[in-house]
């Protein structure tokens, strides 16, 4: 039994596709059955369209990759006109979270206000942690700024409000507490780490933006730790994300306290990765004494 009720909605699987790795869903529709998953988190949506960064935007690293896409997206109006209709018309079982990004509190609030009356999605994942744009980590690394942001967005919507935490802080737990105090409904842990790859032949950074975000299997233990820490410090549901490529990876997050997980970079290696993780989790849950995913959440014996 891997179905759960979270954020007031049914998730038929604990596995979602992570923001930035599944476009707006439609791109993967030919390759995987999105409806077999718990859902997906869209590429970030900002108030105005963003062109994104100059190439190279991606580079491989041992155990992962670095990306600096630069939040390329069609903007709020473009998302509503060209992306949301497909999600609304084609997904009925899979839950959709819209990832929201902004340069200011007003930006974030305007995106949420502009989307809130639309159909086709469950709630928001607030991106306070993208390291690829100037100022992109400001909210995620400053407790007072994060508090103000969450409070303001909370005032704009009654939909599920999930904050995607950055790991680039001394203690993720402090930021989890801030989100809970300001009325967030959940947390995603974690976004990428800042990283750089040097092209030794040209002596230049390989990535056009110079630095980017590190994702992939290399960051799995950091994500599991952040999930555990967030659950120690708050009672908010946590979506575990970072480095998952197998059902056992996902189970680490679940035992550490995540009720849902997201598969990201692994989808580039195998578009079916999330479906395989979901099927594998079903088998693991069936074999566990609890027989229910909800009873496995936070079942870590860390005494």
């Amino acid at each position, binding site marked *: 039994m891997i179905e759960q009720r979270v954020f007031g909605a049914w998730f038929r699987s604990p596995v979602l596709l992570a923001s930035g790795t599944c476009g707006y869903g439609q791109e993967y529709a030919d390759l995987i059955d999105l409806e077999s998953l718990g859902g997906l988190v869209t590429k970030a949506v900002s108030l105005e369209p963003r062109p994104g960064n100059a190439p190279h935007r*991606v580079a491989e690293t041992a155990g992962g990759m670095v990306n600096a896409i630069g939040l390329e997206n069609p903007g709020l109006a473009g998302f509503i006109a060209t992306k949301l209709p497909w999600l609304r018309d084609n997904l009925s079982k899979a839950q959709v979270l819209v990832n929201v990004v902004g340069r200011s509190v007003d930006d974030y609030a305007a995106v949420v206000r502009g989307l809130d009356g639309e159909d086709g999605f469950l709630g928001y994942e607030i991106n306070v942690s993208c390291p690829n744009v100037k100022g992109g980590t400001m909210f995620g690394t400053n407790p007072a700024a994060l508090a103000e942001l969450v409070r303001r967005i909370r005032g704009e919507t009654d939909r599920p409000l999930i904050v995607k935490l950055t790991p680039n802080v001394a203690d993720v737990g402090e930021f989890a507490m801030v989100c809970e105090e300001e009325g967030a409904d959940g947390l995603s842990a974690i976004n990428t780490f800042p990283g750089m790859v040097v092209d030794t032949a040209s002596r230049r950074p390989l990535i056009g933006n110079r630095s980017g975000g590190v994702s992939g299997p290399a960051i799995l233990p950091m994500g599991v730790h952040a999930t555990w820490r967030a659950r120690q410090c708050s009672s908010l549901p946590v979506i575990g994300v970072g480095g998952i*490529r197998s059902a056992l990876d996902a189970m680490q997050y679940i035992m550490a306290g995540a009720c849902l997980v997201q598969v990201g970079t692994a989808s580039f*290696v*195998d578009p079916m990765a999330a479906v395989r993780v979901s099927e594998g989790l079903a088998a693991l849950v069936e074999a566990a004494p609890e027989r229910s995913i909800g009873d496995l959440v936070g079942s870590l014996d860390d005494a």
Partner: protein
Amino acid sequence: MEPLRRRARLLSGRLVARDTWWMEFDCPEIAAGALPGQFVMLGKGLGDPLTWMLPRPFSVGLTRPGGQVGILIRAYGEGSRALCRVREGDSLVMLGPLGRGFSTDQPAECVAGGVGLAPFIFLADWYRRHDLPVRLIYGERDGGAVFDPGFIARLTGCEPEIFTEDGSHGRRGRVLEALSRDSAANSLLMGCGPSGMLRALAEHAVRVGRRLEVSVEEHMGCGVGTCQGCVVRGAGGDWIKSCIAGPVFDAADLDWDRAGGR
């Protein structure tokens, strides 16, 4: 056709130049649907927990009626080297066919630099089967890197005109010189190779007023449009995903002055 993801068994791997392998995989469904200029993502999948490797894009180098897909791989870095070490009988994971290919309805003059030769092997064979004329101009830095020309002729029925910068194989010089000497101006010009070569080719095409199609190469994450990693600069200044809008573009649709962004 919609892309398929299949295990592809290596039937034969042959060293055809320095660090360069011609590999033929058994993958009938992808072979049946691929068109010249399209590509596949080739990788190891997620099966082995100790192996992490992003898949890499390769032009389809040939398809055979028996279901074989030919791929030309040059070992540049750790990943391509790992793919070159795959043994006959072992399998990789192939996702494809992907992207938009070359026009295949008019006589063609193809200019290849390095492993940019790969799509033109497929195209030349396609043209032979469809009874269309094709000219193949192929350049490398030095003779050691040149793909065995007899083997190319057997694969395509087309004798490539070979240029090397040091003159150690074929004619000394660069591929563009072949165009300035004698050129079938009524044919469609096509290019695939290093960005400097493509840029020079694009300038040539503008100068002589010919239409040019180019296959571009940019770092790719997914190959299907989700990661937004593989962009090139369009003539209108916008970033265009080379995986789904390309990899073959009309050269006039790209911004050659700001192609790399920096």
